């Protein structure tokens, strides 16, 4: 919200400098966004006259203007504003002027073949408001070539503050002055809101509120006042300047008064031209199909949840949001019907969101407007109308009731110290609160505090602590160490938290880069990777490729491979450790560690190199990555099941599943299916793996951290080689398992050292050669013992594999 220093001084008697005020605003919670000396920032802009505006020969939306900026010669300016027209008075920037709203300096130019020496400006370009619908329109009698800041009277200091949603009371300059006064920066000046005597009964009866019991009803109390015989027209210079300084466009005295009261006291008003109201106006909800031609020249469709003020012809005004064009006040208005009403903030907010209208009225009313101001606000408006436009006020037409919170809080003074650590003298606490409008009774340790009507956000003790704290200043709270619970911190990470950390470092140490990709992916990709259920779809996705919660990390990683490929980088090694969503339930969220290698990005390097040729990534690269992560997490891949059950995304003959018993899948690995490579628009080969970190078994709790005793044998180990001819389908895993099981005490290790196929082995057969290491523990093995264990190994393997020993 913007306001000027002199406007603030209307409400606050203070000697404080603008800097001091700016700092204090932030201190008390009214964050200063900017403080600007408009006279300086905008001193180069001048008033100007568009002597002629003609269609640009080469551009539909541009006009070529001849501008008189008081220099004695006409300046050529190309302007894109829809309202640039012959005869208009506006604001002009000479070449070399810095345009704050565009953060650029305008130069001499040529726009589509037409010379342009300067710029006609909108309010947004001058950062006076958000209004960039067109260039500024000034009255016809505006002198030409005058400094715009002098003409508009905006040569003072302008504050812009941001107001939190709970502080409806600070949406008017008066409320801001009240906070500053409570802080001690001056004295609040009161406003005369006493009743203005009426000249007779109101020609418009109090507005009936026509709502059935279960309808949403936005209106609470509606106050209207008929003021007869006003003389409307441009408002006085001081009022116009004040509005311009904060970015509002003066319209006419009546409308300007409504804006003055809205910004000055945070009390929005609406002024109807009473002669344009047909029949008795009423309050009701809009009917389906009704629309409002609003004051912003746009047409809004209305629905049954929105309260309107309507006459015989339909909606005149969307309650609490914006008035309609049909009954708006103009220079010709003679009889005014001034509205000051209180509304349900939540319903105003809802209507505001539905229609998308952002108005000064909505901004205030959805934040709460002091319900005690409904009738006084109407009196203030009436008084201002009479001062500026004359006229005879009729009796107020009031219907409905205001809603007062009337909160009373029992406030133990010790709460301030309990919650903030700050010691504040009781006298200071009561002084602060009373300056903020709180009424206190009781003595001693606990006060009974009555909350003023403009602070419905204050409902309990903690709220009062905040009031005291923000007036004392948080910087004055002494800093105090938080006592330690343990002098040496205990283990802080849970198993899964440690797993994520370890998996991440293990994969990075294998040369993969960690990516963080979106939790949501396209529906197509989610479905392809086994997700896409309705309950995992966003109802309001931000983009079509971010609609579904990911069932796997691979789509994100593969998309990254594709993007990097498009940038010319085809050997990628990427991983992510992150959440996937198997259902929308909390337990459906798992952490996966997944990785992809593409092109030749293998462990020992990628691309062409003098030391060896660049080999394409394959299934064993993925398996090795997966095994490394499992190992880092304490699981030996040789001790879990490696099953030839590839996931859907894998080459059917080059992928597998890692399992722990029939129910627990730890992960998958494989080469990406060639059809998927095509479908996902990838080029090279890709090897990938996924590990479900949540599926890993919780490590067993042990009584001590002692490792099992190390039993070292003094005897030499010996090894024996065996080669078996087996069917091609027999897995090495089965052979190893059988061999290892042949004599668990003696066999220390079994390794596959050769695998080959060929005509001499037989059609559909392969030869698998294993090396078995035997470790005698007590005495050297005799030939008989070695023969015995060899026979057991051959027996076990041939039985398990159906193969024969090669001789």
């Amino acid at each position, binding site marked *: 919200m913007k306001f000027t220093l002199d406007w603030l001084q209307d409400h606050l008697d203070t000697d404080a400098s603008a800097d001091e005020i700016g700092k204090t605003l932030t201190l008390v919670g009214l964050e200063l966004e900017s403080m600007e000396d408009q006279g300086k920032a905008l001193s180069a802009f001048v008033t100007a006259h568009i002597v002629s505006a003609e269609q640009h020969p080469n551009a539909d939306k541009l006009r070529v203007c001849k501008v008189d900026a008081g220099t004695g010669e006409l300046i050529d300016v190309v302007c894109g504003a829809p309202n640039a027209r012959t005869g208009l008075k506006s604001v002009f920037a000479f070449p070399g002027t810095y345009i704050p709203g565009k953060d650029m300096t305008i130069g001499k130019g040529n726009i589509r073949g037409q010379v342009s020496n300067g710029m006609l400006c909108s309010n947004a370009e001058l950062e006076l408001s958000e209004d960039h619908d067109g260039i500024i329109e000034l009255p016809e009698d505006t002198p030409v070539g005058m400094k715009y800041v002098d003409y508009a009277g905006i040569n003072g200091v302008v504050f812009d503050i941001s107001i939190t949603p709970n502080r409806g009371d600070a949406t008017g300059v008066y409320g801001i002055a009240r906070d500053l006064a409570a802080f001690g920066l001056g004295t609040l000046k009161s406003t005369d809101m006493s009743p203005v005597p009426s000249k007779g009964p109101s020609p418009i009866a109090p507005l009936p509120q026509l709502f059935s019991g279960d309808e949403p009803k936005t209106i609470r109390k509606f106050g209207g006042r008929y003021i007869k015989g006003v003389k409307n027209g441009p408002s006085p210079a001081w009022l116009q300047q004040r509005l311009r300084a904060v970015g509002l466009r003066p319209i006419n005295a009546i409308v300007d008064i409504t804006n003055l009261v809205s910004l000055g006291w945070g009390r929005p008003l609406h002024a109807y031209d009473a002669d344009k109201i047909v029949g008795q106006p009423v309050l009701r909800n809009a009917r389906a199909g009704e629309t409002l031609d609003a004051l912003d020249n746009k047409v809004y469709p209305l629905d049954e949840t929105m309260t309107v003020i309507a006459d015989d012809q339909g909606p005149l005004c969307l309650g609490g949001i914006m008035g309609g064009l049909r009954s708006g006040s103009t220079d010709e208005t003679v009889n005014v019907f001034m509205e000051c009403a209180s509304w349900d903030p939540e319903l105003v*907010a809802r209507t505001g969101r539905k229609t998308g209208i952002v108005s000064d009225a909505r901004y205030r009313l959805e934040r709460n407007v002091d319900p005690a101001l409904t009738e006084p606000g109407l009196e203030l408006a009436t008084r201002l109308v009479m001062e500026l436009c004359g006229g005879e006020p009729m009796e107020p037409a009031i219907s409905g009731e205001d809603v007062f919170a009337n909160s009373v809080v029992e406030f133990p003074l010790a709460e301030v110290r309990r*919650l903030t650590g700050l010691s504040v003298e009781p006298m200071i606490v009561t002084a602060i609160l009373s300056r903020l409008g709180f009424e206190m009774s009781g003595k001693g340790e606990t006060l009974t505090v009555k909350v003023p009507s403009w602070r419905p956000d204050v409902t309990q003790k*903690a709220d009062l*602590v905040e009031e005291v704290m923000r007036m004392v200043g948080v910087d004055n709270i002494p800093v105090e160490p938080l006592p330690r619970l343990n002098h040496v911190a205990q283990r802080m990470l849970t198993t899964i938290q440690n797993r994520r950390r370890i998996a*991440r470092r293990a994969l990075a140490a294998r040369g993969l880069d960690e990516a963080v990709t979106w939790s949501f992916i396209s529906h197509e990709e989610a479905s392809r990777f086994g997700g896409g259920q309705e309950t995992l779809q966003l109802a309001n996705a931000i983009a079509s490729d971010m609609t579904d919660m990911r069932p796997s990390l691979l789509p*994100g990683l593969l998309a990254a491979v594709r*993007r990097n490929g498009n940038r010319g980088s085809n050997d990628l090694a990427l991983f992510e450790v992150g959440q996937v969503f198997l259902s929308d339930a909390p337990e459906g969220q798992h952490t996966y560690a997944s990785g992809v290698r593409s092109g030749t990005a293998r462990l020992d390097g990628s691309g062409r190199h003098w030391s060896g040729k660049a080999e394409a990534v394959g299934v064993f690269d993925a398996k090795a990555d997966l095994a490394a992560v499992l190992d880092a997490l304490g699981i030996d891949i040789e001790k879990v099941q490696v099953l030839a059950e590839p996931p859907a995304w894998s080459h059917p003959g080059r992928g597998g599943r890692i399992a722990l018993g029939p129910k627990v899948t730890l992960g998958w690995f494989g080469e990406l299916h060639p059809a998927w490579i095509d479908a996902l628009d990838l080029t090279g080969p890709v090897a990938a793996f996924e590990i479900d970190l949540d599926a890993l078994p919780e490590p067993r709790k042990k009584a001590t951290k002692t490792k099992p005793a190390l039993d070292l044998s003094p005897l030499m180990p010996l090894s024996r080689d065996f080669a078996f001819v087996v069917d091609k389908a027999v897995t090495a895993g089965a052979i190893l398992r059988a061999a290892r099981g042949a004599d668990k005490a003696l066999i220390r290790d079994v390794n596959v050292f050769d695998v080959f196929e060929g005509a001499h082995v037989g059609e559909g057969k392969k030869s698998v050669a294993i090396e078995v290491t035997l470790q005698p523990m007590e005495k050297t093995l005799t030939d008989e013992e070695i023969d015995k264990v060899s026979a057991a190994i051959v027996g076990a393997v041939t039985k398990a594999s159906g193969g024969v020993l090669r001789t």
Partner: protein
Amino acid sequence: MVSLSNQEVGHTGPATPSPLGKCRMPSLESFSMSLEQQISTLRAELSAAIAAAADEAGLDAVRVAALGKKGSVSALLASLGSMAPEERKSAGPAINGLKSEIAGLIEAASTVLKAKALDARLAAETVDITLPLQPAPTARGRVHPISQTIDEITAIFSDMGFSIAEGPDIETDYFNFTALNFPEGHPAREMHDTFFMKPGPDGVKKLLRTHTSPVQMRVMQRGNEKPAASYITPRMDPPIRVVMPGRTYRNDSDQTHTPMFHQVEGLVIDKSSHIGQLRWVLEEFLKAYFEVPNVTLRFRPSFFPFTEPSMEVDVQCDRSGSEVKIGEGNDWLEILGCGMVHPNVIRNAGLDPDVYQGFAWGMGIDRIAMLKYGMPDLRAFFDADQRWLDHYGFRPLDLPTLFGGLSS
């Protein structure tokens, strides 16, 4: 050569070493030279042959020709048997002397030839050691700045006695809003730009959490049920000290906002903690995180539905150069929001706000990572551009610890 200096007699003219294969054995039957002469000739011939041997194989041929079974020296030795005892008395030592002399020469020559052979091999084995390596896996792999920052945060707060709490990304309206004192229809709810899930069969509309604060309530709330999954932090009894990092989502996208981002929330609940201690925790954290001796914070009263009093915190910094310097300068940078946990929230958790109290704070992980490490654009965090990851990522063994320093 040692053996040559032992020569007793000058020999008769230079001996031309005959080709080894044609080396004649002296014959006793056709004895025409004295034994001394024979020995002397043999010594001269063999010495020359040894000296001429170019390699170990050549030397070995000389050895066989001299000392082998049928060698010339061996033949001379064999002739002792047919000598008269008198003759043998003087011939024996002379012939044996020749034998050991030749053996010594061969051994010495062998040592020299071996050394030469090794030198030659080593010379042949020379490689160009300037040839480049393939970079090591640890030189290639990088940890994402978000993970690194979370590890840094974890290192600091675990030292301060905080554990890490977690909850699900797909949340209920209750945990994300209602329990945290966001009234239905309140503008603050709207400011969150919430992503909603399509309603389930029961008609309930879940949402993507807009902040990590729902974890506060999951940790604080009373009750006996176990969490639905092991990653979800179980309920705790006060005193509670947790930090809650995680992914959060808002329907918003521009240069400084992405629809997904990371937040870290902190929560302290006990019977005495207050804003003075909150200030201490935040100052200590920010000092440790930015690795600077001092930070100056500015606390501004503000509004959050789930804290009262609420504050926003700015950190003093210098933004005059290309880098943001925390702990010096004249600029203020908004860095986090905080406050005392709202009595309604404590009440919603089933605790008595007149007995229990505490504070909470929240900040953007991506944002503080950008401030510390200087990435200019948030959107690049999620783009997985290899060049970006290699540049802004961290080495796998750069483990942030307090004892070793958070960053190298």
